């Protein structure tokens, strides 16, 4: 299976850990994955992008129009990365909003999330959108948005390994005191993807 996954979010949301865990799960499944990360700005509220590439591809990064999966950790950043998608892409979007500083200081306006979602739904093959931030808090850690989204991704049947495989990788790489919340968040993401009401286009 050839697969290109593009992850985007805001510093502190755990995009790098999510991409690494996808890579580790792929390695376990016998692939030679490539995981490309942007470093340096993660602590400072900037955009953090990473990619996971599997299969025959040797390039670690993803050109415009070539992501099979877009994992958007934040509404605006997911939309900003829409040009990475093609007509058959699966997009999974956390609808929770993180207001950029330019907006909070009145230099710009945050676009209407519903409008962004409807524009996205018209462009990609499948669109799953839900408030992963709320689920993460419900699971016991607002830092577990990445686990929610990983659970949703594996439930959307686009990965060459099972939910149980990925769950085990999550378990191996989680510190004991976060384990319960992380696994709960993972499960909630899974359930969110199984809820037809969260699909704006296509389905699991």
């Amino acid at each position, binding site marked *: 299976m050839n697969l290109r996954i593009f992850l985007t979010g805001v510093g502190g949301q755990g995009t790098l850990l999510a991409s690494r865990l996808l890579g580790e799960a792929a390695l376990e499944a016998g692939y030679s994955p490539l995981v490309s990360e942007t470093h340096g700005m993660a602590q400072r*509220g900037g955009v953090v992008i990473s990619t996971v590439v599997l299969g025959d591809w*040797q*390039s670690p990064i993803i*050109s415009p129009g070539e992501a099979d999966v877009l994992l958007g950790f934040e509404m605006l950043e997911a*939309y900003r990365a829409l040009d990475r*998608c093609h007509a058959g892409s699966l997009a999974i979007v956390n609808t929770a909003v993180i207001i950029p500083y330019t907006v*909070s*200081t009145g230099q710009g*306006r945050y676009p209407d999330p519903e409008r962004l979602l409807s524009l996205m739904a018209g462009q990609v093959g499948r669109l799953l959108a839900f408030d992963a931030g709320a689920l993460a808090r419900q699971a016991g850690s607002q830092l577990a948005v990445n686990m929610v989204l990983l659970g949703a991704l594996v439930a959307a049947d686009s990965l060459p390994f099972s939910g149980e495989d990925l769950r085990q990788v999550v378990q191996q790489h989680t510190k004991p005191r976060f384990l319960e919340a992380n696994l709960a968040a993972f499960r909630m993401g899974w359930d969110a993807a199984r809820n037809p009401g969260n699909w704006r286009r296509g389905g699991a």
Partner: protein
Amino acid sequence: MLELLTGQPGERRLLLGNEAIVRGALEAGVALVTTYPGTPASEIGDRCYVISRHRDLAFEYSVNEKAALEVAAGAAAAGWRTMCSMKHVGLNVAADALMTLAYVGVKGGMVIVNADDPSMFSSQNEQDNRFYARLAGIPLLEPANPQEAKEMVAAGFALSEDLGLPVMVRTTTRLSHTRGAVTLGELAPRPGPGRFLKDPFHLVMVPAVARGAHVRLLAKQAQAQARAEASPFNVISGSGPWGVVVNGVPAAYVADALLTLGLEGQVTLLRLGFSHPLPEKLLVDFLRGVQQVLVVEELEPFLEDGIKAIAQAHGLTLPIRGKGEGLFSRLYEFHPALVRQVVAAAFDVPTPAAPVVAPPPEQALPERPPNLCPGCPHRAMYYAIKIALRDLGVEAIFPTDIGCYTLGLLPPLSMADYLICMGSSITTACGISRATGRKVVAFIGDSTFFHAGLTGLANAVHNRHDLLLVILDNGTTAMTGQQPHPGVTLTPPDYPGKPIAIDGVVRALGVERLWVVNPYKYKESLAATKEALQAAGVRVLISQAPCRLYAERLQGRKSRARFQVKGVCAECHHCLEYFGCPAMYLKENGAAQMAIDPDLCSGCAFCGQFCDAIRPVKTG
């Protein structure tokens, strides 16, 4: 971090390019590693630091790249295998040492890991450091993926010992920060004490010795070229009249392009991993077997120009294309689709239909630039200086330096007017001040001050310049991941380095007017700033408060205090216009009332000192 010390030979691990470099060095028996942190090379040093606390490996965060290279050179002269890592502009700092180290040579293998940054993800320029290998006359290895990075570092040590020359391994940001499957080898034991054999008429570069050393260097380059001809890192695959030459990470883009275009095996592909000196015989054979050549390399036409020169010398007139005709740009990082399009255009084959791309949004999307953290001490100091200048009715020019505080460039702080490189704040301030006669306030961080500020400050004092230097001392090298430096007050557990007090250094350099303030104490820092601004000559104000992120991480606890707009917001927007903490926001789009996001507020208590409406609140 210690996972780099575990694992059985043959086991596959998902390693960053930078981690693969460290593993390769450990498998080659490296005895000493030095570095000055810089993105994208930083993880090399950081992993080595942790390993050095658990295994017999000598490691140091050097004061700058020149010191790092020289420490590594000295140990290599004593027979140890040594590695020195840095970002590309770091090699400018170390270049003086590098040029003559090539004359002196090495006994133990020495690998210089140089990380270039095409697209300038975190750098002030995108210079192509392959030219340094040519300028110094040392071999150059360019890995394409983490597995190759590990292999080339290990091979680099052996090559270095065989030739008696340091070897450069050049990565780019994309390789340094890509994880890939790496098959582990055996860790090698570290050797015992090194032995330095006195040999001054080969090792002391006075002119009479250097003249002979240059002759030896040219002879070593001829040997290096012979090694490049036979190197397993220089391989030809496929066949056919179309030739492609590629180095490093772009080799992956070419491989994907040939796959997508259905050209696999139908192009004669030369991958150059050992790319300086160029393997002339191999290239001539390659050029004779094809009708046209496309050279794929990021940044400068380093290979392309070299191959054209070889073709000319052998009377070969086939087209050699790349940057010369503008098929490829000299700007920025490549990506798979870009390379695919150029390959298709160069060989006139059809490309797959252009992918569907989303329409532009109806409004410009708001940007999300990186910012100083909530509670950052730099912002508090910048605020005091802005207010002091406003109160005094003075405008100032702000030469700045390299670190987190460079983000003071952004509005509303707008505290950066001029920047070249590490240490340039102080010296360029001297020139600006002398030429304009205006008030000049220069900013430098503590790590940068030790790296390249000491000489500039001595210069300023000695030549009786007029400037206020603000040393933004947060106790660590924050921007690159909180590495220690000589002035550290915050250190990782067990850090063995001896701290050097900055104020003592400043006084010893002859500075007579010195203020040390805690930037979180607004009234005190404002008063000191006003005094310092009004004084003449070289004055130094040290703003001393720990990097908040790092202090929290080291102590494992966060401040529980939070601040909110509890009084009546006067809607003056002073906080927005002068302070700009990311935790502050306008209540709604277009509204005038300010609010503070309790999830982002760090509890630093600074804003409550300039606005009466902001008060502390208790949190759980």
